[in-house]
C-alpha cells in the first residue's frame, strides 16, 4: 500500500501524445541545450548581448555599497588614508623604510590606492556568486557578470581615492610628468588582474565555502608580497623576479611611477602583464567549466 507501488501503473500507461520527435527542430535552433555537449565555448556574442547587464550589476553594487552606513562614500577615502597614516607612522617614521626618495606618505598612498582597490575587488567578487545565489538559481544570464560587476563597482572608489593624490602632489611639490598618461593603463591592468583573481575565487567559493575564510588571509599575505609598504628596489636583484611574478608588483610600481615620475621598471611590468593575462585566461576557463553547475550547488 505504499505510495510507490500504487502508481507504478500510472507512470507508463498513458501514451505520450506529443512525443514524435521531428529532427528538424534541432537543426540550427536558436538555443540548443544538450547534455552531451561539454565543450567550453567562449560565448562572446552572448556576453555582448548582455553587456548592459554588466552596467546594471555594477551600478547596483555601487548603489548598495554604502547604503545604511553613517559615513557613506567617505569610506572610499578613509580606508587608504588611515592605512597611509598608520604605515607612515610605523614604517616611515619608526622603521625608516626607504621610499625611493619620495616622501613616505605620498609613496605609501600611491601604492595603497591601487592596492585597496584590488583587495576590495577580489574580496567582493569572491563573495559575489554566493551572495547572489537566489539570482543564480532563478534566472539565466552570463554568470561571469556577477564577479565582474563587483570588480567594476570598485572602480568608482578607485577613481575617487586617486583624486586625493592631487592635493598631496601639490603639497609635496612633486611635478607631474608625461608618465602620468600611463596611469589609466595601470588601472586597467589592475582591473584585469582583480577580475581574473576574483572570478576564480568566486567560482571556488560556490563549491568550497572555505574560500570565504581564506580571502582575508590571502589579502593580508598578498599585501606583504607586494611593494606597497616598501619599494621594489629594496629587494636584492637576485630575488627581484620572485617579486615580479606577483603581478600586483607591476600594477603598483607602474601606478606609482606614473604619478611620481620615477622611471618605469619595464621588465617587472612586462612580466606582470604576462602573468595577469595568464591568470585571466586560466580563471575564465575555470569559471566556464563550473558555471553550469552553480545553480545545483549554490
Amino acid at each position, binding site marked *: *500500500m505504499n*505510495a510507490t507501488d500504487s*502508481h507504478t501503473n500510472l507512470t507508463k500507461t*498513458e501514451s505520450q501524445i506529443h512525443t514524435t520527435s521531428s529532427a528538424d527542430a534541432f537543426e540550427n535552433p536558436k*538555443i540548443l541545450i544538450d547534455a552531451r555537449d561539454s565543450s567550453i565555448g567562449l560565448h562572446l556574442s552572448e556576453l555582448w548581448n*548582455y553587456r548592459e547587464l554588466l552596467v*546594471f550589476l555594477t551600478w547596483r553594487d555601487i548603489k*548598495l555599497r554604502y547604503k545604511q552606513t553613517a559615513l557613506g562614500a567617505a569610506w572610499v577615502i578613509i580606508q587608504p588614508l588611515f592605512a597611509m597614516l598608520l604605515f607612515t607612522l610605523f614604517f616611515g617614521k619608526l622603521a625608516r623604510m626607504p621610499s625611493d626618495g619620495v616622501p613616505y606618505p605620498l609613496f605609501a598612498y600611491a601604492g595603497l590606492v591601487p592596492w585597496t582597490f584590488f583587495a576590495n575587488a577580489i574580496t567582493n567578487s569572491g563573495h559575489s556568486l554566493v551572495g547572489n545565489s537566489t539570482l543564480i538559481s*532563478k534566472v539565466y544570464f552570463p554568470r561571469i557578470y556577477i564577479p565582474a560587476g563587483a570588480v567594476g563597482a570598485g572602480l568608482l572608489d578607485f577613481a575617487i581615492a586617486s583624486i586625493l593624490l592631487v592635493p598631496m602632489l601639490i603639497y609635496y611639490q612633486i611635478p607631474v610628468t608625461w608618465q602620468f598618461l600611463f596611469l589609466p593603463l595601470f588601472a586597467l591592468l589592475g582591473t584585469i588582474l582583480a577580475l581574473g583573481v576574483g572570478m576564480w575565487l568566486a567560482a571556488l567559493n560556490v563549491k568550497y565555502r572555505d574560500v570565504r575564510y581564506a580571502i582575508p588571509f590571502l589579502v593580508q599575505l598578498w599585501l606583504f608580497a607586494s611593494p606597497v609598504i616598501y619599494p621594489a628596489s629594496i629587494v636584492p636583484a637576485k630575488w627581484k623576479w620572485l617579486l615580479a611574478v606577483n603581478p600586483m608588483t607591476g600594477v603598483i610600481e607602474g601606478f606609482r611611477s606614473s604619478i611620481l615620475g620615477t622611471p618605469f621598471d619595464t621588465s617587472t611590468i612586462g612580466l606582470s602583464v604576462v602573468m595577469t593575462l595568464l591568470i585571466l585566461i586560466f580563471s575564465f576557463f575555470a569559471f566556464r567549466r563550473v558555471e553550469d553547475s552553480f545553480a545545483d550547488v549554490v
Partner: protein
Amino acid sequence: MKPIIAVEGLSKRYRIGGRQVHNSLRDAVAGLVRAPFKRFRSNGSSNIIWALNDLNFEVARGEVVGIIGRNGAGKSTLLKILSQITRPTKGRVALNGRVGSLLEVGTGFHSELTGRENVFLNGAILGMSRAEIQRKFDEIVAFAETEKFLDTPVKHYSSGMTVRLAFAVAAHLEPEILIIDEVLTIGDVEFQKKCLGKMNEVTKAGRTVLFVSHDLNSVNAICERALLLHEGSIVKSGVTADVTRYYLDHSNNMYSPITWSALPDADAKEVKLNNIRLLQNETSTSAINCREPFTIHIDYQINEVVRGSRFFLIVRNDKGEVIFTTSDYDELTPAAMKRQVGRFLSRVEVPGGLLKTGGYYGSLGVDIRDDRVIFAADDAFHFDVFEPEDDIQATRHRRPGAISPLLGWEITEIK
C-alpha cells in the same frame, strides 16, 4: 512548421544525501582518499534521484502549455533546464526563440533599491535592454499600480506591491517563449485576474507560454494543452481539461507526504517499537465505534537519544488516501522536545464523530525533520470504523468527502 520547443530524452539526475557535494576542502580531501570505495558504493544508487526521466515533448509556436503535478514531480527541474539555469544529465532541448523565464517573482529585486531602480535592474536581469525598459517603463508602472511609490525603497512595499511590480516587469518582457512558475498564487484576486488577462494578451500576440501551477483553475483558464508530470515522467499530456481531470482522479495516488517503503525495518538501533494498540472505552479493539473517541497507544523503547527526532503517524483509508498525519512534535511538549533513554508510551487520541465508516491503515515512524528517517513501520496497524446505529446521522457516511465529521450547527433566528 518547426516547433518552438523540442525536448528529447531529457533527464536530470540529482544526488541527494551522501557527501557528493563537498562544502569544504576538508571533505574534498577526505573524499579523495575514499574515492575508489565511493565510486563503488555509489552504484548502489540509493542516493541518486532522477528528477526528470526521459522526457519527450514538443510545443508549437503560440501554444500555451500548462505543466501540472504534485511537489517533487519534476516541474521546477524542467523549467530550470528550459531556462538554462541548470544542465540536463541526458537528452537535449531545442529552443527556437528568445526565452524569458519567471521562476520566482521578484528575482533580483533588491529591498534597498527603489521601485524605479528595481524595474531597471530586474528588466536587465531578465534580458531587456535599457532602451526597451525605458520605452515600456510607464506601461509597467501603470500595470503594477505603484506610481506613487516609485522612489520608495522596495523594503517598504507590501508583499502584494512587490509582486505586482515584479510581475509587471516580467509580463512586459516580450520574449518568444515565456516560462512562468507559480506566479499567480501570490497577490490578491483582482491582480490575479489582471495577470491572467495579461497572459492571454501575451499569447494572442503569438507568443509561447509554459505555465506551471498548482492552481488547476488558472491552468484550465489559460492553457490549451497540459502535461502532467509524475516522478519525473510525463504521465498524461493533451487537452488541459482532460489532463486536469485525470490529475484530480489520480491525485490521491500521487500524493505521498512520506514514503517509508524504501526504508529500513521497524527496528532501528536508536528506537525499538514494542507494540501498537487501539483502545476504545479502555478496551483493546480494532473495531472502532465512529461516534466515540479512541486512543492509539504506542509502546516503544528509546535506546539512544536522537536530537530533533519526532514520532509520526499516518492514517490512510482503504483506498490509500491519507486521512491525516500527526506528529508528537506538533505541540512541542517537553517530553517530545527532550527525549530520554527508556521505555515510553505515547497516547494519541482521535476524536469521535470524525472518521467515515470503513477500513483504515496506520503507519508509524520516527524521523528527523528534513533530514532522515530513523525508523518506519508501514501499515503497522489496521482498524475498522463502524456506525453503531442506523439513524439519520448514519447517512453522512454516504456523502462525498474523506471524513464525515459530526459538526454542530447552531441555528438562531435573527430578529
